[in-house]
């Protein structure tokens, strides 16, 4: 065996663990969820046609701030904090950032579940949905997103009420 072949074998062996590993090593700290088929259709709405809204939300960085502020506020919001108990907040932050980025025309893919599956058995009511809207409005204002642009994102999220509110 020449030197070249030895190197190739070593390379193959090193590459092998990645190829056969657990399918979720990309997201350390997250709990596993029941199998589902990832699709951008799961994001629950069609994305904006251009990047203007993505820019109005200050890109990936702005969306990251907004989602982190939203989740921090929601888990401390006495109206809805119970809903977030025992939920995977690491996964929630990641998938929300993916969803907002995708919907706002920032590209990328949404890898999460659809709205129905993601909110199954949570017993969410209208008042919970609206409380989260208010927390999101607060987070978007904190990031300095203009009110008109906030409403354009809310217009995409509002119809998800049909799948999210089950009680």
């Amino acid at each position: 065996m020449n030197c070249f072949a030895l190197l190739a074998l070593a390379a193959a062996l090193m590459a092998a663990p990645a190829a056969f590993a657990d399918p979720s090593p990309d997201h350390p700290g997250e709990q596993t969820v029941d199998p589902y088929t990832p699709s951008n259709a799961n994001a629950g709405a069609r994305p904006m046609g251009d990047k203007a809204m993505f820019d109005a939300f200050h890109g990936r960085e702005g969306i990251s701030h907004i989602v982190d502020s939203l989740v921090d506020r929601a888990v401390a919001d006495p109206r809805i904090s119970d809903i977030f108990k025992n939920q995977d907040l690491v996964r929630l932050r990641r998938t929300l950032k993916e969803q907002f980025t995708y919907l706002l025309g920032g590209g990328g893919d949404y890898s999460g579940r659809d709205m129905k599956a993601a909110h199954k058995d949570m017993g969410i009511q209208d008042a919970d949905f609206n409380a989260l809207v208010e927390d999101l409005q607060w987070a978007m204002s904190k990031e300095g997103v203009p009110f008109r642009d906030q409403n354009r994102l809310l217009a995409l999220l509002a119809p998800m009420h049909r799948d999210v509110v089950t009680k």
Partner: protein
Amino acid sequence: MAKSFKLCVWAVGMAAALGFGALGAGTASAQALREGGKLLLTDGVSNIEGASGGGLATWAVIGGDETKDGIGASVAATDVHLPAYDLRVYSGKVGLYNRLELSYAHQEFDTGSTGGKLGLGDGFTFDQDVYGAKVRLLGDAVYDQDSWLPQVAAGLQYKVNDKSAIIHAVGGKSAEGVDYYLAATKLFLNESLVVDATFRYTKANQTGILGFGGDKHDAYSPEFEGSIGYLLTRHFVIGAEYRTKPDNLGFAKEDNWSDLFAAYAFNSHLSLTAAYVDTGSIATFENQRGLYLSLQAGF
């Protein structure tokens, strides 16, 4: 005497409405009813007839800060100050499960010194009670953003005026009447606009302040009322309204009404509406334009 009696009736009516609401809230824990929960201003404000709407128009939204899981209620005091007249309205409404709205308004149309000029006597006041019921038929003004379908509601308003003799003297046919309406309201979030279009079937002269039906025309007329509002913040909306009216009385022509309004919600319990209203000609006094102010408190 008559005035204090009216106020007393109004106070009892309000107490009953609030008691009804409180009763609902009291049984809330048992039935898992839920207090509050509407987004700011999505229940509109209290209009001159006590229903939720803009200032002049009645909307399809259900009053009170409740969702389909609860009961809400609000009270409002409104003053429309015109050059020749002053209209004061005290009203209350109860919203049940974001489905049914029951409302009551007591209107005092004070002719002030104009009453003397009309031969009625200074300070002559028409008092009218408006009992309203509205039911949401279909759609959701807020959530259905992926559809053109508005929220649609049907309602009626039973109006009783206490100045029957004067109403008949000026050609009016009745001191009481019923208005029927179909309202469609939609929030266009993408444009930050709220739009309402309402069709009203009515015989009311100056919304009933001058009675129902007249010597010139004594049949129901289809009328239109509409609002358009622009959301500046989640607390603040500005807009305009228009309301067409019948012209039933021979002694004085009746004009359509319009306004420019601004409504501010301090929180889910308190809102203030200010408007510049043009009511045209009322009982031969032309160009009745003035300030509309309304304060609403509720839960």
